[in-house]
């Protein structure tokens, strides 16, 4: 209801706003987005910053509800009433829009050189030749820990897997804290915060992910089963009744100070900062031996593209180039701690936890979630199956080998990479 009202108000303001424009040469750009939460940031920080530098271009941020976004956008694009700038979901949903000709090719956009190939991969054609959205933000996986608890128990931040499990053992033996706050009820926690979090260290990030897409590696290979073997070992460290523990339960357990370690995505930072009453720290997924190259899941989440039917394509391109600039990245990343700019130039951030997360980019290699690109196009859907199997492995319903075999069989049934 509130979102509808908001949309109505926004529509109203956009119409009135454009009607009241005195300068005939002023161009108004509309942004389509599902991030209604970010409305204040766009209105108060991002858009004024842009308009100050680019007189003559007005920008209106017009979000719709996340669950309605894809359908609403599709309808608007078909009717020709969509905004000039379109916030892009990662991978197939945007790729489909590009293929239909709704999104313009931005490969040559000034500013695109600011992004690494991994950052751009979410909004490229399968062959990587054309890019159609400017990457805006990503989320990084790791572990957030209760610093007070670690200090009290005299635990050092674990670097290696052995240290990690030693720390868990110590917390468990002490008994004050639940060692790890994670549940399997909602399934995706096990897959996203578990498998995709620790996995890249085993399958060597992009190397493994690309090899899987090419068909050189299989999910039944050692590197892909090993994360499941580690996940299976997590079971004794989870709280009582973790099988029925939901995602909000896990968040609450940790922020109430009842659990010591939280397998996290960086998007939690904003919420945890306001809720937790203790000091927090973060560490990347531990590696096997000290000094090993570490890999992190730095998952591309949000981008922005240009409506191919836009009447103000040049103004929109100016705006997109600004989105690709470090200026934008600095404002955005500070306003939304936990959503990290994908820009190659380092961004100064105030939030210490966010700084910690983003510092891993310097020492570790980034990759994205293994199931997102190409591999989740068919039936059975690899991402959904990964949710189910990751939960199964932690619950002990399936052995790691059985889970991997099920996933690979499902994938084989429709995915045939050209060798």
């Amino acid at each position, binding site marked *: 209801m509130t979102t509808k009202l908001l949309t109505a108000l926004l529509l109203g303001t956009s119409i009135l706003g454009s009607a009241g424009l005195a300068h005939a040469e002023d161009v108004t750009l509309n942004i389509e987005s599902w991030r209604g939460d970010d409305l204040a940031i766009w209105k108060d920080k991002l858009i004024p910053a842009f308009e100050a530098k680019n007189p003559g271009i007005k920008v209106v941020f017009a979000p719709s509800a996340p669950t309605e976004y894809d359908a609403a956008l599709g309808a608007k694009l078909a009717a020709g009433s969509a905004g000039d700038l379109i916030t892009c979901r990662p991978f197939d949903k945007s790729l489909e829009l590009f293929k239909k000709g709704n999104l313009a090719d931005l490969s040559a956009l000034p500013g695109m050189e600011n992004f690494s190939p991994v950052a751009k991969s979410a909004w490229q054609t399968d062959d990587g030749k054309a890019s159609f959205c400017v990457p805006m933000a990503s989320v990084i996986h790791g572990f957030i820990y209760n610093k007070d608890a670690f200090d009290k128990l005299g635990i050092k931040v674990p670097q290696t897997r052995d240290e990690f499990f030693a720390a868990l053992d110590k917390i468990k033996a002490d008994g004050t804290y639940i060692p790890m706050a994670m549940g399997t*009820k909602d399934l995706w926690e096990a897959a996203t915060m578990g498998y995709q979090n620790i996995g890249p260290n085993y399958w060597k990030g992009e190397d493994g992910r690309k090899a899987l897409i090419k068909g050189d590696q299989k999910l039944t290979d050692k590197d892909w089963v090993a994360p499941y073997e580690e996940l299976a070992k997590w079971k004794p460290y989870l709280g009582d009744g973790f099988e029925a523990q939901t995602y909000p339960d896990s968040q609450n357990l940790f922020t109430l100070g009842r659990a010591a370690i939280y397998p996290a995505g960086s998007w939690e930072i904003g919420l945890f900062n306001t809720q937790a009453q203790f000091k927090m720290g973060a560490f990347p997924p531990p590696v096997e031996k000290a000094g090993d190259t570490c890999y992190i899941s730095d998952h591309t989440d949000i981008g922005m593209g240009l409506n191919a039917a836009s009447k103000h394509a040049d103004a929109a391109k100016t705006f997109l180039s600004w989105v690709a600039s470090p200026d934008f990245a600095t404002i955005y990343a500070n306003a939304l701690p936990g959503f990290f700019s994908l820009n190659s130039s380092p961004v100064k951030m105030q939030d210490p936890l966010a700084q910690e997360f983003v510092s891993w980019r310097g020492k570790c290699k980034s990759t994205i979630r293994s199931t997102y690109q190409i591999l989740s196009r068919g039936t059975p859907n690899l991402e959904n199956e990964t949710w189910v199997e990751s*939960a199964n492995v932690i*619950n002990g319903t399936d052995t790691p080998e059985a889970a991997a075999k099920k996933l690979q069989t499902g994938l084989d049934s429709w995915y045939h990479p050209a060798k």
Partner: protein
Amino acid sequence: MAAQTRPKRPFRWHIAVFLAPAVLVYTAIMILPLAGTLQLSLFRNVDQSQIFVGLDNFRTLFGDPNWSVNFWNALRNNVWFFIIHMLVQNPVGVLLAALLSSPKLRFSAFYRTAIFVPTILSFVIVGFAWKLILSPLWGVAPHLLDFVGLKSLFTPWLGKEQYALTALSLVSVWQFIGIPMMLIYAALLSIPEEVIEAAECDGITGLSQFWKIKLPLILPSIGIISILTFVGNFNAFDLIYTAQGALAGPNYSTDILGTFLYRAFFGFQLQVGDPNMGATIATIMFLIILGGVCVYLFLIQTRLRRYQF
């Protein structure tokens, strides 16, 4: 001869006129969508255009293990969901109605209302409330069991493959028990006093009166309730979706036809919706329900004896 002498009856337009609104509305919102679904199930989307493929979608659903395993699992779960309702909801509903109709019971209006209230609650509230009640972390269930010294009996039911579906079926029973209770209660009240008095004169009282006199008289109502339960259960979706999500975890153990249809039709997360396969599943659900209702109408209802007073 008589036919010739009687003047030809004029076509009775008013019947058509009075029927028209209902027929039009029903056609527009029920029959057309149903036909559309059936039609959709015979097509497939190839390169952005719908192509007629005959029964291929059904062959995929039953022949391709990627679909058939899920389908049979959903059907099996759905049957179990229905069995629990038939074994728990309806007998307990009859029992409650019998107790309520007893003239000696005090506060019966209060009980009646209290038991019926969950039925009018939204699924979302019921699903969420029970998720909280059964939560191992903040739920009251573990504390209550602890209170009577049975803490060892507690397990995270909704998270265990072997219990989740049964637990949810019982939640659904809890929610809907008011319906059989009310229907049976009404049927019991409509039994004429004379029949009961005659029975009492013959020395049939108490329990045997219930078994020999009242139960046969309310059998038609029980039949109706069974068929309502059948239709309701095979169309169920909301409770599972609110309590367990669209993937109906753990390990698809609570996946019923409704959630399976939802995932196929609308997609989920990275899974893109496939309206054609969704319509195929919807068609099968329609056929299952149609079959069940036909069995009831032609085999059972015709044999039920009705008593005229």
